[in-house]
């Protein structure tokens, strides 16, 4: 059978029995779920039973691409890692969420498809440290003794050297020492730069799976080449005409513009990227002159350096490099260093608990040793390695209420963003998206930035382009106000669709085109796959995927109660000057203090618009039937 857009096969690997097999991609399945998280969840639901230990051999790691990955469609370098994530996701009960982590890649996803597979499903546990090689010649479970124990960049370089392609590098996904040691707040790196699988490093480590290498030359066909190139030209014309658009990030993307430009060595993107967001920086002065770090948003690095009271920025470059090399989640680790050091200084953590290591804010060497303790799971590091809730429970603290100037913690994960850091008010879209999400992640992209970047008319125009009906628009827009809960439903559907297609929502949203162009995506999808669908039908696929994700998590015991409002988001905060009009930013909400009830009302309207039961969190039977998900419901809940 001829496949267009899709590579056409799903690869299965059983590491315990050293078996590898593949099956043809079911076109009916991808018509329904598109790809990426949709394909991943559909496979996951039939493979894994509720209650499975995330670090057991039975918990699958699924890496799935979308139909636009490997084509010229703008920003089509994304892939998803779907698994049950190993951090405890509830303060009250040991349960773990099933989610999809999205990451960009240069060669990895493109080469996976060119080797003939849309998706890899890995189960079991290898007897010895192993890595997986997926090429034109076949699939091989290889001995990883030469790379086990090596840091992320060393292992990536060794694998690239060993499996070089004709026209460039192979694709590589790799975990660091933290993942090998089952540190639950670890992740994988793609092509030595992007991260894929925040908190999934230990899932791979538990399988003795160090890396996946991809390289292939089968080619990705599109159904209608002429239509595809016309869509490409139209899209690029539109994007490049946008007034703010610049291919390379300009100095103003960073509030440390001068330092950002001074230290920037290279800019990197993903395949078919139109607005690369990753860069490699080199310290031009300071104690660690010449030290480089890569991958992270520059401002996060510098902001954290200040918060950790490091005396020069080169120390921060060095610290980030150490954390990255070990494959630890950078954001979580920096926040934990900060939080644990403060707890030590407040006398909540004793010197015996740190193994004799004195902690002091600003002490670079103490931070480095604490990172090493996390990686080795020693002393307090062993607790940090378990994640936020076990750490807090053991110490008798509550970081999700106590971490006032750091972040919020939702379902065991520190959120990428602080919803308070926006000048107009609580950023309803971002905050709410994190609260109702299966796992807190980059979900602020699923939302709007009302009153800051977008005007009300912009948001309306965006909704119209998503194909919302009159009655849907009437429910969202009431005079000059927006019902954020209802709006979020559609924004999430669109965001999920981006991930399912394998296109980057960052490059499409940030700075130059903050609108969801579902018709444009549909045009690419139709030209590529040959499937005849309307933009609204494709948006519906996003809704279907989000509902399947919710179904899987309800089966794990999650309910409405788990969509908890972090107490820190109801507190005042000192915020950087750039985003505020004053030094202290008060939590006003339409010129009054935001209350918990305000957020609860948003959650309620979100649930109503979604068609989810407000108590159980379960999609209603009508909603499941409408989306064709009844058979998935029956997998878990049929009496």
């Amino acid at each position, binding site marked *: 059978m001829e496949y267009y857009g899709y590579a056409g096969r799903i690869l299965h690997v059983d590491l315990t029995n050293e078996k590898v097999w593949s099956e043809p991609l079911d076109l009916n399945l991808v018509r329904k779920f598109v790809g990426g998280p949709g394909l991943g969840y559909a496979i996951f639901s039939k493979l894994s039973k509720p209650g499975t230990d995330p670090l057991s051999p039975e918990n699958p790691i699924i890496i799935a691409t979308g139909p636009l990955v*490997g*084509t*010229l469609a703008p920003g089509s*370098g994304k892939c998803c890692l779907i698994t049950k994530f190993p951090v405890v996701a509830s303060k009250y009960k040991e349960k773990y969420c099933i989610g999809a982590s999205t990451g960009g890649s*240069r*060669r990895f996803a*493109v*080469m996976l498809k*060119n080797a003939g597979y849309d998706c890899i499903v890995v189960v079991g546990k290898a007897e010895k440290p192993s890595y997986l090689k997926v090429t034109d010649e076949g699939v091989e479970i290889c001995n990883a003794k030469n790379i086990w124990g090596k840091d992320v960049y060393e292992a990536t370089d060794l694998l690239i050297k060993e499996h070089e*392609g*004709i*026209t*460039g*590098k192979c694709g590589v996904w790799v975990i660091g020492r933290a993942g090998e040691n089952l540190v639950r707040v670890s992740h994988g790196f793609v*092509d030595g730069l992007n991260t894929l699988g925040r908190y999934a490093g230990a899932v791979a480590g538990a399988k003795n799976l160090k890396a996946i290498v991809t*390289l*292939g*030359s*089968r*080619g*990705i*066909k*599109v159904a209608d*080449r002429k239509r595809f190139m016309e869509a490409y030209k139209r899209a690029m014309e539109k994007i490049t005409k946008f007034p703010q658009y610049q*291919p*390379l990030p300009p100095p103003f993307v960073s509030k440390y513009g001068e330092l950002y430009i001074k230290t920037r060595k*290279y*800019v*990197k*993107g*993903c*395949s*078919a*990227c*139109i607005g*690369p967001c990753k860069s490699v920086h080199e310290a031009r002065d300071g104690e660690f002159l010449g030290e480089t770090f890569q991958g992270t948003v520059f401002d996060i690095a510098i902001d954290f350096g200040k918060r950790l009271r490091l005396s020069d920025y080169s120390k921060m470059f060095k610290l980030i490099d150490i954390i990255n090399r070990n494959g630890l989640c950078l954001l979580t680790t920096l926040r934990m260093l900060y939080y644990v050091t403060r707890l030590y200084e407040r006398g909540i953590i004793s010197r015996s608990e740190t193994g004799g290591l004195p902690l002091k804010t600003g002490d670079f060497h103490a931070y480095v040793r604490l990172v090493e303790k996390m990686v080795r799971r020693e002393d307090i590091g062993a607790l940090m390695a378990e994640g936020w809730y076990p750490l807090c429970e053991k110490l008798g603290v509550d970081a999700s209420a106590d971490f006032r100037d750091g972040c919020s913690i939702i379902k065991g994960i520190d959120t990428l963003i602080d919803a308070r850091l926006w000048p107009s008010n609580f950023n309803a879209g971002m905050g709410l998206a994190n609260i109702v999400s299966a796992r807190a992640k980059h979900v602020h992209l699923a939302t709007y930035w009302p009153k800051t970047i977008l005007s009300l008319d912009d948001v309306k125009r965006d909704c119209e382009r998503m194909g919302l009906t009159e009655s849907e628009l009437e429910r969202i827009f009431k005079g000059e106000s927006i019902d954020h809960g209802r709006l979020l439903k559609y924004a999430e559907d669109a965001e999920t669709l981006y991930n399912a297609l394998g296109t980057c929502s960052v490059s499409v949203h940030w700075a130059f085109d903050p609108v969801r162009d579902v018709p444009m995506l549909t045009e690419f999808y139709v030209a590529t796959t040959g499937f005849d669908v309307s933009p609204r039908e494709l948006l519906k696929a996003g809704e279907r995927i989000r509902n399947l994700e919710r179904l899987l998590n309800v089966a794990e015991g999650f309910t409405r109660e788990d969509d908890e409002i972090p107490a820190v988001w109801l507190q005042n905060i000192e915020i950087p000057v750039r985003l505020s009009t004053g030094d202290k930013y008060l939590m006003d909400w339409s010129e009054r203090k935001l209350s918990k009830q305000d957020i609860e009302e948003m959650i309620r309207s979100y649930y109503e618009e979604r068609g989810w039961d407000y108590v159980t969190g379960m999609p209603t039977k009508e909603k499941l039937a409408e989306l064709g998900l009844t058979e998935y419901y029956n997998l878990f809940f049929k009496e």
Partner: protein
Amino acid sequence: MKNKRDIIVNPERCTECMRCQLICSFSHTGSFNPERSGIVIKPPIEIYFNEDCLPECRLCAQYCMFGALQLKEV
């Protein structure tokens, strides 16, 4: 063919987006297939053209957005 006389190569500017390899393979083989393209990308050190590269073709430079491949003014 390592170099092309009408294309300036700046490997340090390459973001590894592969747009050059994607358009090259799509135009000359009919599918998106970077390993069948006429250009080798090994930034930040090397970018060069291989034996599959057609002498008169400049698509790669026309599609590069980041200045890694630039058409020479004639």
